[in-house]
């Protein structure tokens, strides 16, 4: 128990690519003919499966996390440890000696220290490249300590190198979560639905949960509802998977084992999106609902060229909004493309950039194809900033909340009115990239893999 649940890497399970720059129908054609993996011969760093696994696990209330590896593997802890009330994210701090002789004792000591100090309800052990290469018997230590201290400890196998797709980390976390926690033993006396919301923060998940509640539907939020949410998940009448890619493994497992079918509803972004979302939900349950007919537009975007960088669901919805508002999409960059999301871009008639953290390619594109506005989800795009393009982070706007949507629209209005900050940045900063690179085509360093 506790270890040995290996999620198939995304490249195999969902035909995922993270290096691509072409029309989406090329990807779709290859799916039927045989997908060719791509690789980059020059790359910039990006988040690994470990990062995404910890991101997911840190959203489970009452869960402790121990990263089994050298200290640097826990360096992103400040990103996820936000509140003084959160459990810490610990790292076993393997030394050179541990990597040679094995780090089992170090793991043992760290787990005991964690359990003794914090008494978590559940503890996750996340593995790292050195541990995976050295084949530490992490499972045995987990089983031993779990028995001795009567604490549920679950191993999450992440390696940093088995998959080049960061969100494989979600699968690596979800599979053991499902295997060890999921059940159909509901402690609720009313029927309910599951809401799988992994990429969103608690505020957004709760607001969507509230939409269900207003319709009189009880909602079980995963993973934010904690251990009990998993325990009852198999008893749900249906699963709503907010994004078709992040929680897909969990949704499929719930269907396969407990017969809980899932649906991917429209993202409730803006009044129009929310209206469509509610229509979808009420249709399923036969609840009377009169559509408002609202349409989500941002009038100020009329005539503007907008570049979008973000996860597939959000990028595709924003693209539609921009077009509906009379603007045009200058380009889209998403971190990956696979079977679960390709359909979202069927209406996009330009080449799609696929690559997480490959700022050099985006700056190449924007240097030649200027945009009036750059929308991004999480990490600030050095490219847009250095080129002085008005930029708005929608990721922090809580787009799925009503207040968040209004705030986002207002942010766009403000930046288009006054982009002084970007203009005051040093325009020479783009010169970190060579002229030679800026003249090449965007996908110069993306090659089909030769095995």
């Amino acid at each position, binding site marked *: 128990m506790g270890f040995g649940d290996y999620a198939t890497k995304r490249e195999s399970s969902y035909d995922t690519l993270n290096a691509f720059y072409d029309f989406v129908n090329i990807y779709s054609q290859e799916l039927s003919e045989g997908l060719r993996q791509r690789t980059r011969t*020059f790359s910039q760093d990006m988040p690994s499966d470990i990062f995404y696994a910890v991101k997911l696990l840190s959203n489970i209330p009452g869960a402790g996390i121990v990263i089994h590896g050298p*200290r640097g593997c826990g360096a992103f802890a400040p990103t996820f440890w936000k509140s003084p009330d959160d459990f810490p994210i610990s790292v076993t701090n393997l030394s050179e000696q541990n990597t040679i002789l094995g780090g089992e004792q170090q793991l043992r000591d760290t787990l005991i220290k964690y359990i003794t100090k914090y008494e978590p309800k559940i503890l996750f052990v996340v593995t790292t490249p050195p541990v995976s290469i050295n084949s530490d018997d992490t499972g045995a230590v987990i089983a031993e300590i779990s028995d001795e201290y009567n604490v549920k400890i679950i191993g999450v196998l992440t390696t940093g190198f*088995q998959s080049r797709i960061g969100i494989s980390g979600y699968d690596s976390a979800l599979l053991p979560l499902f295997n060890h926690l999921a059940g159909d033993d509901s402690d609720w006396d009313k029927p309910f639905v599951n809401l799988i919301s992994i990429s969103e923060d608690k505020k957004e998940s709760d607001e969507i949960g509230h939409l269900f509640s207003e319709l009189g539907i009880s909602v079980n939020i995963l993973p934010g509802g904690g251990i009990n949410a998993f325990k009852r998940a198999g008893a749900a009448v249906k699963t709503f998977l907010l994004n078709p890619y992040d929680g897909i493994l969990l949704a499929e497992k719930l269907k396969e084992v407990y017969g809980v079918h899932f649906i991917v509803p429209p993202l409730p972004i803006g009044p129009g999106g929310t209206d469509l979302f509610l229509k979808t939900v009420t249709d399923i349950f036969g609840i009377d609902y009169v559509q408002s007919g609202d349409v989500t537009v941002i009038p100020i975007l009329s005539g503007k060229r907008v570049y979008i960088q973000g996860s597939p669901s959000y990028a595709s919805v924003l693209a539609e909004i921009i077009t509906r508002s009379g603007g045009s999409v200058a380009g889209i960059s998403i971190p990956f493309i696979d079977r679960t999301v390709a359909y979202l871009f069927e209406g996009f008639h330009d080449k799609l950039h696929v690559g997480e*953290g490959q700022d050099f390619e985006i700056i190449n594109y924007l240097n030649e194809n200027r945009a009036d506005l750059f929308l991004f989800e999480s990490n600030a795009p050095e490219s847009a900033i250095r080129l002085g393009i008005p930029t708005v982070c929608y990721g922090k706007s809580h787009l799925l909340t009503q207040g968040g949507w209004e705030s986002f629209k207002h942010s766009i209005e403000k930046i288009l009115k006054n982009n002084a900050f970007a203009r005051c940045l040093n325009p020479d900063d783009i010169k*970190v990239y060579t002229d030679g690179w800026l003249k090449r085509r965007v996908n110069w360093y993306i090659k089909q893999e030769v095995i």
Partner: protein
Amino acid sequence: MGIHNARNGCVLQGAVDTLRAISGFVPIVHSTIGCSYYAASGQEAGGFYSVLTGNGAVSANAVPSSNIIERQVIFGGGSRLREQIKNTVKVIKGEAYVVLSGCATEIIGDDIDYMAKESQQQGYPTFFLSTAGFRGNAYVGYETAVLGILKNLSLFGASEQQIEENTINLLGIPPVLDPYWAGSQRRMTKLLERIGLRVNRLFGAGSNIESWKQFPDATCNFVFSSWGLPAAIYAKEHFGTPYLEFDGLPLGSQTAVFLGRIGSELGISYPWIKSIIHRGEETLSCALGAIGSSYYTNRYQRDFVIVAPYFTAYSVLSYLESTLGLSNIGVVVTDIQDEEEKKQTYKHLSQITEFILFSEDTSEIADFIQNRNPELILGSHYESAIAKKLRIPLFEVSYPITQRILLTKGLSGYEGAVSLTEDLFSQIKNFKETESE
């Protein structure tokens, strides 16, 4: 032993942060995905300055990396690295390319040095640094990077040594790990220039390959923490450059002692130094006078614990006690790992404080703080949990910092002392007002 909420990062991350703070230096990471991306996570928490270094340094989110995958872990990543280096020089405009190893690539035994030398032979100033994360913390990464650059100066066409009178190098202020590094360095530079010294810009604005080529031409190296000592010793042995060691950057009235010592060692006119000191003391005194009444009304005098690397802890503690009249009831030194160095540090620190802990583990630190029962904590964001539990204010002075952005604020000199006083007492005042609501 495991660490709860690790604050120091690893060797690789320290090296990446150090190199990125020098214009023209391009780190190339040879490792699995994510190793230097973690360094980017720290940017939000440590010192914004280095993210958008105004002179075209490689940004936090865009470090070139070989991102090796399973196939390369099994069969070796040498050819992937060769390809990455070859293409990095075509994409990123650099004057020096530094190949850094991660844990995985050292475990599998890739011959990274060979690949770096291959690039050298093709005419690109490239060298390799062994920075596997399991070798130590990010301070070791800073040390490794600085020493590595000095050992490879010949690659950049450094000319024959020509001692430049009154030129100084500043060592031991690690970029990002010391969140105040940019402001502290700027203030220290200004102060030294006032007494007629020229400071070689090694990091941040104004830094470039030329300043590193001129490193051996300095009259003297000033070392503000033990992390700069190996480089200073190397410079002494290879360039004949003497060095002066200090216990952190001087803050407030410590500046007088600092300047006096420099004046004496470097033969700078004492009346001139005295006038600088006089102006500085006057500035500080006026500032403190302005809040004299508020000091007593708002009861700023607190028992405090400080949690920081030694070079920050020593100077801040000294200033708070000797000038602001606060009482130190505990120190946690978060950077020193070596047992021998701990003993030396303990001996030195115990002359000014009684309760000392060496730890980087957040839970151990929290227990220590709880036992000391202070009225104020100066530490990192990780101390927010114990501060909340004890219902006392936390002022962030050490990595990671999330309370504010640090652009020009520095913990050095008279101005640094005034700035620290403003921020610290504002924090106490705001906390007090919040408590009473």
